[in-house]
Structures are given as C-alpha cells and as structure tokens.
C-alpha cells in the first residue's frame, strides 16, 4: 500500500532528455519532498508517477506492480495541483464529490466522506459556494478535500502553496504535515522552496537538471551535503562558500560554513573583517562581513541584540565541527 518505486525511469520530450535514468524508492507512509530550482524536472517526475506523462524508458512500480499500462485514475493516487484545478462551475460540495461520482460510489457514502473531509478541513460552511467565491487558502483546502475523499494510496502535491501569501503558507504547511501524521498515507510533495522541504519532509530528494543530487533526511542534507549544489541550496541564509587561499588552508578547493556556525569573538579569530549591512530581525541579526582575501562578504548570524556598527572591525571564528570541505569536482571531502 503506497509503495512507489522507479527503476531506470527516463523521460524525453522529442530529442531532449529531461530525466536521465533514475532510480528511486518511496516507502509506504513516507513524506517525500522533491525539491530543486525551477526547471530541475521535479514536476515532470511527479507527473511520471501520476501517469499524466508516460516514462520513455524504465519502470514505475506502484505497490510492486508495473504501472505502465495503468491510466492515472487506476493508480490509486490523488493529486493536488499548483493552480488548485478546481472545477469553477461546480459548488465546493460537487467539486469534492466529483471523483467519487466518477467512481460510482453510493450517494450516502459520498455524503459521509464529504462531511468528514469538510470537518477536518474546516470547509463545512463553504460547501455550497463556488470556488470563485473562496480565498486562496480555502481553495487549497477544497483541492485537498477532493484528494482525501478518494482515500488514495498516496497523495501527490505539485507546489500546492506557491500561490499563497507568506503568512498563510506557514499555516497550510503545518496543516498538511498534521494531515500526514493523522492519515499516515504516503505523500509526495514537490516544491522549489527549501524551507518547505526542510520543515515537512521525512525524506528530501534534491534534484538538478533531472538528476538526483542527494536523498536524505532534512538534517542529513543540512549537516552533510554531498556536494556544493546541495550545500548552497539547503539552508537560509545560504551557506558561505569560500574559494582560494582561505580554503587552501583547510586542504580543500572550497570550504563552506553556514551563517549560524560562525561566532563573533572578541580577540583575533580565524578571520578579521569589516561589518557591512546588518539585518535586524529581532530574533536574530544577520551581519554581512567583508574580509580581506575573500571575494564575497560572509553572512554571520548573531543574536537579536547584536549591535555592531557599520564599518566596525570584528573577529570571526567558524565552528570547526560544522565546516564543510569540498574538492575541486565540488563533491564533499569527508
């Protein structure tokens, strides 16, 4: 139930190979997030699993069965689209009922499931409205409701929060995570936002140009990024990446240190630099420090009460345990 497996799956559009051969196993009940910059093939991968695109070569297995000749509706998967893809001329109730109507589920059972879904998603009072009369967050919930009532083997989410504003996004993120805890159904979630990936996933799959760069838990990716791409992609603000002499000192082509792993010390640390712009968030302060011999200014996270003036000289000490070293071919040096 809800076990999905790709073996040597590839996808080409015409002559362009969007996804080179790719193996991936998604275990039952997992919350897997596909993350990567736009154009990395994450949505295509999701659509291969959904059956909205056919694999060019290789196999997609769902619960151990080759899904090659299964149409999307027979795969037992439910998808939540980025645009919500609600039917604008139907009421919320009829939108949610639509997949059940197609599956010829008896009306009483339909009613029961709609009532359940509406209660869970706080939609009960909106059931008779049209999607056009709802806010973005409510439409999102209707789309999730339409997915839930099918009682699928797995949920597929295609950047479901990207059309919501920042505050709502945090709320919906938690709602989806809680939904996963309650239903314990496999969920595959596509996003370009590494914060969503980190906060929601059991397992993150980082993609670039159709190739899996790393698969792992959020903290695994954060602490031992396999290469420069993953290191730069995961974490906010971005990891400071330092090339040249400063890196040579650590026997590496490039070293990386996250803003939260640099301490400001009173006496001479590893680096000495000049304070640039400081971003005061209240909870933290992010200070940009220009250092001689390092091209880009480093970003340093200090406490919310940090009070270094523009142009001051400060000393920085990276925490050595959290220093990342990368070789010339951009892979991690263990």
């Amino acid at each position, binding site marked *: 139930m809800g076990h999905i497996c790709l073996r040597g799956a590839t996808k080409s559009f015409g002559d362009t190979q969007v996804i080179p051969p790719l193996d991936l196993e998604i275990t039952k009940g997992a919350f897997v997030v596909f993350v990567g910059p736009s154009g990395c093939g994450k949505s295509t991968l999701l659509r291969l699993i959904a059956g909205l695109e056919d694999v060019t070569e290789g196999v997609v297995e769902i619960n151990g069965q080759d899904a090659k000749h299964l149409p999307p509706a027979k795969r037992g998967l439910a998808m939540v689209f980025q645009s919500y893809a609600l039917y*604008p001329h139907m009421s919320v109730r009829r939108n949610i009922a639509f997949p059940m109507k*197609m599956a010829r589920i008896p009306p009483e059972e339909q009613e029961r499931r709609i009532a359940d879904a509406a209660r869970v998603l706080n939609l009960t009072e909106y059931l008779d409205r049209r999607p056009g009369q709802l806010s973005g967050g409510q439409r999102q919930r209707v789309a999730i409701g339409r997915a839930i009532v099918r009682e699928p083997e797995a949920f597929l989410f295609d950047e479901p929060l990207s059309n919501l504003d920042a505050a709502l996004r945090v709320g919906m993120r938690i709602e989806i995570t809680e939904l996963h805890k309650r239903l314990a159904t496999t969920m595959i979630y596509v996003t370009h936002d590494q914060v969503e990936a980190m906060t929601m996933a059991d397992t993150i799959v980082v993609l670039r140009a159709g190739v899996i760069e790393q698969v792992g838990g959020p903290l695994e990716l954060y602490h031992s990024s396999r290469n420069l791409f993953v290191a730069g992609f995961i974490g906010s603000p971005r990891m400071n990446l330092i090339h040249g002499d400063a890196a040579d000192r650590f026997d590496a082509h490039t070293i990386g240190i996250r803003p939260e792993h640099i301490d400001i010390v009173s006496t001479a640390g590893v680096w000495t630099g000049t304070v640039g712009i400081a971003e005061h968030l209240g909870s933290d302060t992010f200070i940009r420090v220009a250092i001689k011999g390092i091209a880009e200014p480093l970003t340093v996270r200090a406490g919310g009460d940090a009070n270094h003036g523009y142009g001051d000289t400060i000393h920085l000490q990276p925490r050595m345990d959290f220093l990342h070293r990368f070789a010339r071919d951009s892979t991690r040096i263990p």
Partner: protein
Amino acid sequence: MVNTLLLVGGVLLITITGGILFALLLDQPMWGQGVIRIMAIAPFFVMPTVSGRVWKNMFMNPVNGIFGHIAQWLDVPPIEFFSEIPLLSIILIVSWQWLPFATLILLTSLQSLDQEQLEAAEMDGAGSIGRFAYVILPHLARAITVVILIQTIFLLSIFAEILVTTNGGPGVATTNLTYLVYVSSLLQFDVGMGSAGGVIAIILANIVAIFLMRMIGKNLDA
C-alpha cells in the same frame, strides 16, 4: 417569422455543434497547425455574394454541381436544391459561412482552459466523455453564448433584408438564395414599408446587442 426562426435556429445548431468539433480537432497538437487554422477561417472572409454563387454553381447545380455528380455516380436522381429544399439549402450555405467564426471563438475559449483542470478530471477518473461533459462544455458555455448572440444579430439582419425588401410577403416561403440576394432586393421599391421594416429590424438587432454587451461586460469583470 417561422422561416426566420428555422433559419436562425438551424444555423446556430449546425455552427455550434460543428464549431465545437472543429475547435476540439484544431486544439490537438498537429503538423502545420498554423496553415490549417488559416484555411479554417478563410470561408468567413469570402463575401456573401461570391459564396452564394460558388455554392449555387459548384455544389448544388443539379447538372454540373459536385452533389449532382455524386448523385449521378450513385445513380440517384439529383436534387434541385434551391427549388426543392430552399430553406435547408440556405441554412447549409449560411452555416458554412459562419462555421469558421464559431470555430475560432470556441477555439480561443478552449485554449484558455486550464490544462490542470483536465488533468485533475483525468486523475479523478473521468473518461474523455466525462471530461468533455464536466469540464470542457461548462468552460465553453460563455463562448457559446457569445457565438449565439452575435450570430443571431447577423442572422436577424438577413431576416431584415428580407423584411426590408420583400416585406415578408408570400415569396419568402419559397425564396432561394439567388432570388434573395440578387433579385428580391430591387424589385420592390416601397420606401415607406421598407423603412418601417428597417426600423423594426434595428430594434430587434439592438435588443440582442444589449444582451451581447452585458455578456461582454460581465466577461471583462470576471
């Protein structure tokens, strides 16, 4: 009046059904899409006079027309279109002229349909008929209304021409297109009745026009 309703109704039915079919067909990705679309719209730009003549001579002429040849080949007596089934002939010709317009409007509307809705319906288990009935048709509803209104206005003005010229007399029931377009408009120079008929036609057309404008107005708001 009955003739007018039959004419308008028949043309609407044919153009909308045909328009949806063509629009669906043209919406498929295919080779030479641009050229085919231009060919589909071309008849709309052929002038009524010319089209009447072309139909009369090339297709429906019992001796030399294409339908005549087909009938001959099938060994069936050829049909004297304009004298035996005048109204149907007119409906066919007018439909042929308006079909591209309907197709174009419906095609534009079809292209504005969110593909994710279709995919969602596919995931939800709707087959191609289900997708057409539950997603495509409701989406086209507004475009269909626009087509109906615009066509009604223009078809009414055909009616108006009859009214202005032959004043709806007993000749209408058997009027054929040649007679209608080339002859009838100039045999009767009854200016008073003609003007009165013209005014009625303007009023009728404008009532429909108001509905049309409201529709467009709503469309712009949404």
